[in-house]
């Protein structure tokens, strides 16, 4: 990959679209990915993912047919892998909404190259997350008890329960994310429709493009809808992980009941999600030849966000520790000492090393601009954030108030393969996405290119 000379823009900023792209070449670049014949690596990758997914389906079937005793859960640790994995996946989803909504509101134009990709990641992560509450019910056929309908004794659900809020939050999140993503896709689907030769492909894309023709009137309402959705999705994404944190924080359990949980969980979710964006984006941009759209500047920005959010979770860890001492509650003090130095202490230090220490390398510009370093760190963060949830959940439960009720949690093979199976679901959906849907928000990148051309004209005029 040769270095491309990029003229400095006003304020010394590096151009977001590089390599002398035009509107037409951008269209070819992005649409070409779905139009070209299936790449050689795709089928093996897809079949592998599908196999892993079927393992997960098998585990779920075994669990539902046999009962949740096949998991390692038992008193006192009644919540372990299931809820850890649920929070892990839903957290990963948050980066997509953050990029599409919050960065949009803050006019961070670099988001346009990665938002489609990250939003898709959100949807698939939420799908993976959604499995756990359902199968953890044990009797999944009674899931309608979660909705405001009377059960056989005419009793309605308890709306005071954080688990009910979770149902409302996660389903709202899934629906709104899907709609937001689809609305963003419409103009690009129209592009694919208009490039397709008459036939089935044209009809399918034509159907999903809903007859979009890019009229100024369309764009006007479309842009307003997008702005409003961004404004709606921003508090939504914060509320989702807030409510997830309340599953724990509304309890009176030391280690769970902490008022900082809502913002702390939101920061952690963004942190884990951006790590996953990086994990997926670093290889994808090379595979699909997107280096001129997803530039080093984009990756560097993600690294900076990782560093910032990593420090935020570090802040929360340290504040919790300080207040555990300062608050003076002996149970609270014990829980935190046990977390760091008890039987699961190794998990705690894995968490601290991965989440707080490893992103510190991003203070160096060299690390922020070297793809393999960021890829490695992003894997560390993914691991660390999984362990964060594991540490919070399991260490708080396994030492009950009475030593006679102490215990340990050990995952069974069903626990482990179910978790691996969710990765199968995630990657299966992801591979379908990269094959059939424009993976870069084409119309938005074109708008960025248009602005960039204007700025260059200003610079040239000023220079001459």
């Amino acid at each position, binding site marked *: 990959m040769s270095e491309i000379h990029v003229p400095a823009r006003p304020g010394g900023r590096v151009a977001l679209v590089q390599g002398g792209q035009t*509107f*037409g070449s951008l*269209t070819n670049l992005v649409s070409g990915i779905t139009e070209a014949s299936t790449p050689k690596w795709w089928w093996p990758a897809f079949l592998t993912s599908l196999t892993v997914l079927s393992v997960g389906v098998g585990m779920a079937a075994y669990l539902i047919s046999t009962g949740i005793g096949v998991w390692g859960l038992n008193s006192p640790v009644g919540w372990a892998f299931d809820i850890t994995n649920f929070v892990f996946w839903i957290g990963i989803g948050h980066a997509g909404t953050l990029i599409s909504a919050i960065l949009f509101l803050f006019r961070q134009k670099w988001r346009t190259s990665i938002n489609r990709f990250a939003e898709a990641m959100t949807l698939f992560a939420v799908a993976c997350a959604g499995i756990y509450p359902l199968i953890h019910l044990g009797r999944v056929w009674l899931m309608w008890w979660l909705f*405001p309908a*009377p059960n056989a004794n005419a*009793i*309605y*659900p*308890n*709306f*005071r*329960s*954080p688990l*009910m*809020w979770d149902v*409302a*939050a996660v389903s*709202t999140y899934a*629906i*709104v994310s899907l*709609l*937001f993503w689809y*609305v963003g896709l419409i*103009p690009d689907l*129209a*592009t694919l*429709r*208009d*490039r397709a030769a008459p036939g089935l492909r044209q009809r399918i894309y034509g*159907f999903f493009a*809903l*007859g*979009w*023709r*890019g*009229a*100024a*009137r*369309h*764009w*006007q*309402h*479309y*842009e*307003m*809808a997008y702005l*409003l*959705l961004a404004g*709606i999705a921003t*508090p*939504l994404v914060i*509320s989702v992980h807030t*409510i997830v944190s*309340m599953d724990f924080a509304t309890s009176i359990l030391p280690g769970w009941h902490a008022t900082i949980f809502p913002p702390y969980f939101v920061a952690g979710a963004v942190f884990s999600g951006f790590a996953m964006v990086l994990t997926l984006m670093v290889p994808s941009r090379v595979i699909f030849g997107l280096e001129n759209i997803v530039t080093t500047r984009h990756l560097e920005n993600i690294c900076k966000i990782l560093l910032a959010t990593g420090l935020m979770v570090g802040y929360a860890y340290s504040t919790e520790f300080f207040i555990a001492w300062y608050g003076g509650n002996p149970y609270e003090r014990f829980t935190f000492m046990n977390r760091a130095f008890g039987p699961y202490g190794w998990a705690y230090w894995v968490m601290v090393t991965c989440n707080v220490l490893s992103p510190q390398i991003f203070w160096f510009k060299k690390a922020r601009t070297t793809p393999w370093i960021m890829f490695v760190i992003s894997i560390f963060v993914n691991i660390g954030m999984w362990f964060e949830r594991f540490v919070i959940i399991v260490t708080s439960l396994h030492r009950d108030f009475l030593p006679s009720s102490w215990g340990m949690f050990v995952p069974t093979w069903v626990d482990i393969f179910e978790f691996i199976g969710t990765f199968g679901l995630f990657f299966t959906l992801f591979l379908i996405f990269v094959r059939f849907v424009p993976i870069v928000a084409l*119309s*938005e990148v*074109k*708008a960025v290119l*248009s*602005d960039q051309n204007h700025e260059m004209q200003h610079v040239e005029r000023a220079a001459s």
Partner: protein
Amino acid sequence: MKSATGAIARFDSPDHLMSAIRTLREAGFSEIEAYTPFPIHGIDEALGRQRSKLPWVVLVGGLFGAISGYLVQWYLSVVEYPLIVGGKPYDSREAWIPITFEMTILFAAFSAIGGMFLFNRLPRLHHPLFDVPTFSRATNDGFFLTVRIFEVPQDRQAISELLASCGGHDVTTLDMED
């Protein structure tokens, strides 16, 4: 649905399109529509359009979600089947807030998207413009402009020349619907 005749032209860049819109507006045309692959800054002002009314639709949708979300929880927990759970009062107002909030968001999002489709008269899978052979570039790199002819007493030849003089390519006439 009455039919009227219009003209369409393609421009190379947003700047050419914008200057053509200005020229046509000065020449007295008012029913102009532009078709572009991405939204162009300032085009609504150039076309003399008002700001979208969509925020009001969303406000109504959000309020509906908030009120109905709260009332469902209140009614079911206080009136329909009151139960004490977790030592909390029947009407645990604080505890209704999360779901009320989520319902606000959900219905606001529905109304944002529904309202956008309604205002845009979408979905509509076919449109006469799709019959114009070059129009497929409107989602690629072409910046199109349509104008209704009968408004000012000018013949087709004159409008075609006017569009071409602004930098328009592929100028053709077409049947415009209302």
